[in-house]
């Protein structure tokens, strides 16, 4: 097995691990607030679940990039490609945007979701706006995902 592949593994692990941790924290933050709201009004479960799920997407983006890395280096095909250190580094760097941005954006999106949950608690008619606010944070996670995909696509093996 080549040395480069070690770095590629690190990249995949960082993408999945960082973005996933961020999502876990974000979903947790939103969930705590949501549970608080539901003690008052359990009928809002559907809406709360929706808002709580929004910070979960970063984890999926991270998983997606990690998965793309594994496909790219041929892990699933059974015959890992030969990677030089340089190629491994490139793959590792490609994973960083989604890992780093995913981590932080998920946490802040969780906070925004929590705020939105507070909003629908008092003004249920403003659901549309409440959903858009966390989606604004999501933009940067999406952009980081696109960057990671494009960077990864640019690595020639």
């Amino acid at each position, binding site marked *: 097995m080549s040395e480069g592949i070690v770095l590629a593994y690190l990249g995949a692990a960082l993408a999945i691990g960082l973005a996933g941790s961020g999502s876990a924290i974000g979903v947790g933050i939103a969930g705590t607030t949501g549970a608080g709201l539901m003690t008052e009004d359990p009928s809002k479960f559907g809406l709360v679940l929706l808002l709580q799920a929004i910070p979960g*997407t970063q984890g999926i983006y991270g998983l*997606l990039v990690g998965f793309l890395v594994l496909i790219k280096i041929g892990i699933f095909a059974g015959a890992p490609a030969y990677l030089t250190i340089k190629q491994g580094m490139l793959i590792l760097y490609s994973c960083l945007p989604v890992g780093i941005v995913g981590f932080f954006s998920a946490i802040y999106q969780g906070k925004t979701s929590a705020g939105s949950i507070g909003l629908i608690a008092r003004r249920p008619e403003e659901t549309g706006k409440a959903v858009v606010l966390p989606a604004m944070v999501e933009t940067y996670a999406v952009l980081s995902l696109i960057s990671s995909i494009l960077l990864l696509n640019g690595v020639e093996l």
Partner: protein
Amino acid sequence: MTISKIKKFHIFAHISIKESLLIELQKLGCVEIINIEEREEFHNWNSLDDDFSLNSPVNLSNVKFCIDLLSSYRAKKSKGLKSLLTPKKIYSYDELVQLEQQYNFQELFNRCKELDNELNQLNLQENRLNAAQQEIQRWLGLDLDLSKIEERKYIKIIPGSITKNNYQNLVSDIEQQVKTSVIQIIAEEKNKLNIAIIILKENQPKLEPILQKYFFEIYKYSHTFIGTPKQIIKTINEQLHAITGRREEIRQTLIKLYSENQFIYPLYDLLSIKQEKEDTKKYLKKSAKTIAVRGWVQKKDIPKLEKRLKENFSFYDVSFSEPKEGEVIPIVLSNKAMVRPFEIITELYSLPDYHTIDPTPILSIFYFVFFGLALSDVGYGGAMALMSYLAMKYLQLGKGAKKFFNLLYYCGIAGILGGILLGSWFGDILNYLPPVFNNLSFFLTQKIALFNPVENPIPLLILSLILGVIQIYTGILIKFTDNVSKGKLTDGIMDQISWLVLITGIILYLVKGMLPSVISKISGTAILIGTISIILTQGRAQKNILLKIGSGILALYGITGYLSDFLSYSRLFALGLATGIIAQMFNMLATMIKIPYLGVLFTLVILIVGHTFNLFMSGLGAFIHDARLQYVEFFSKFYDAGGNPFRPFTLKTTYIEVEDTSKADKL
């Protein structure tokens, strides 16, 4: 214009028909009654506040109480789905009114109240008994009548608890100082001992300091039960048993009451209809002989209203007028059936202002296309369309829910189309089919599909951006036509066309490599013209010539806004790709399992759970991001929000449906 035309109606009627007029309007359900403001013409008219007539015991909160109590004791818990499947009972308005006289609610209410009180009493008693039981359980080893423990002539019995550490010291101290004594351990708890100390009464003063020294807690028996702890526990258990029995009896009674008194549901709805009518009265005005009603009605409903009044009343006058400038006019969107479900998206944001345009028709096209790209899987789209179709067909849904499922149905179809375009069928599940289907899967994923984002992401990314350009241009052009139609052609040219020229120039410049060289010249000119016109026009609100130019130059900064708007559409690409790849991942995980026989089961479970999860997450992502693109990128270009919804005065019900009888009569 898909915003319904609204007119104001004014009704004056003889005061004797006040109630029946309101009832007819409520049954008709197409007018919104509004407050008559204090003005000259009404200055000596009074409001009807003094008229409230709902002080009877048959009122909403009492009925609600009975419903809550009885429905929690219904014989078999019918599941939520079942209640969705059974249609609501339909009553005519007159039937409802008769119903109220037919049944004796007061009696039922008293009975419910009584039983509810008794249940509460039983609960209280049960808690008390349980607490006593727990307490006395600890003294089970003491074979003495607890209630008579104080009544000994010569000896003193002191039950109490002490920590294990202190016990030995206590015993030795007592033995040394009090002498005649019996100390018995009754029970052992975690780190405490329950003991009984028996001494001669005369020695009591000597004992007390010792007890204090070792923090001996004397047990004071405070219950009224008589007998030894064993007997008491038996009594308590008997009483507890009696309580359980009685509660079961009450439960049976309530179940019976529930099945015998189904009328409370329609009664509740009738009362809320009446309440609504009473609440509306505060908007009316009356003089000695006349009442005045004012409100909004859709223009298309005017004949209906006039006809209804004519058929029922003779002492009235009705007139209609155009809404005045500055009045808050309620909004009804009236789109074609195909577009109607997408009104939800507009309404989620905010209704349009009455004097502007409804964005729904054009939004529906964009929403459909974007959702298709973001979900982009034939399997998921199909599942979504199928489920919402079944829901619409078999579930008893309210109007709003039906509309929502209809929207999901369209979104599902969009997802199917997007999936065909990207060659995604539950991800790459076609590759796992037996080799016989190779041709089919090759045809579906390679021939029909135009994009393969996993292998070459760039074309799909460009498609997303092009869609973004189209939508933003549309937004700007809508604003332009709006300006033109309001006679503000110059504003339109300065605020919209100048930006369009500049943006077009920049876009052409960015892609000039792929186009003939003449384009790059055009792009340069466009950028120049656009820039100059923006600098010259965007500061026109300022008075000072320097400020004019300054604000114009500052306005150029807005170009970053447009660029980030375009880039924002790249999310469509990311979401579309994500759906397919995650699906692919689950397929791979599922087929990795190589256990004989049982493996098939695991594979199926992983496939079902995984794809359901992905469908939920991708669907949610597509829904939210699509909506966001409409709200933030599209609406910001032209949309005037802030309309209030039209809230008709109507028969609002929770449990049943009410039919307007006069309609049925004519049929």
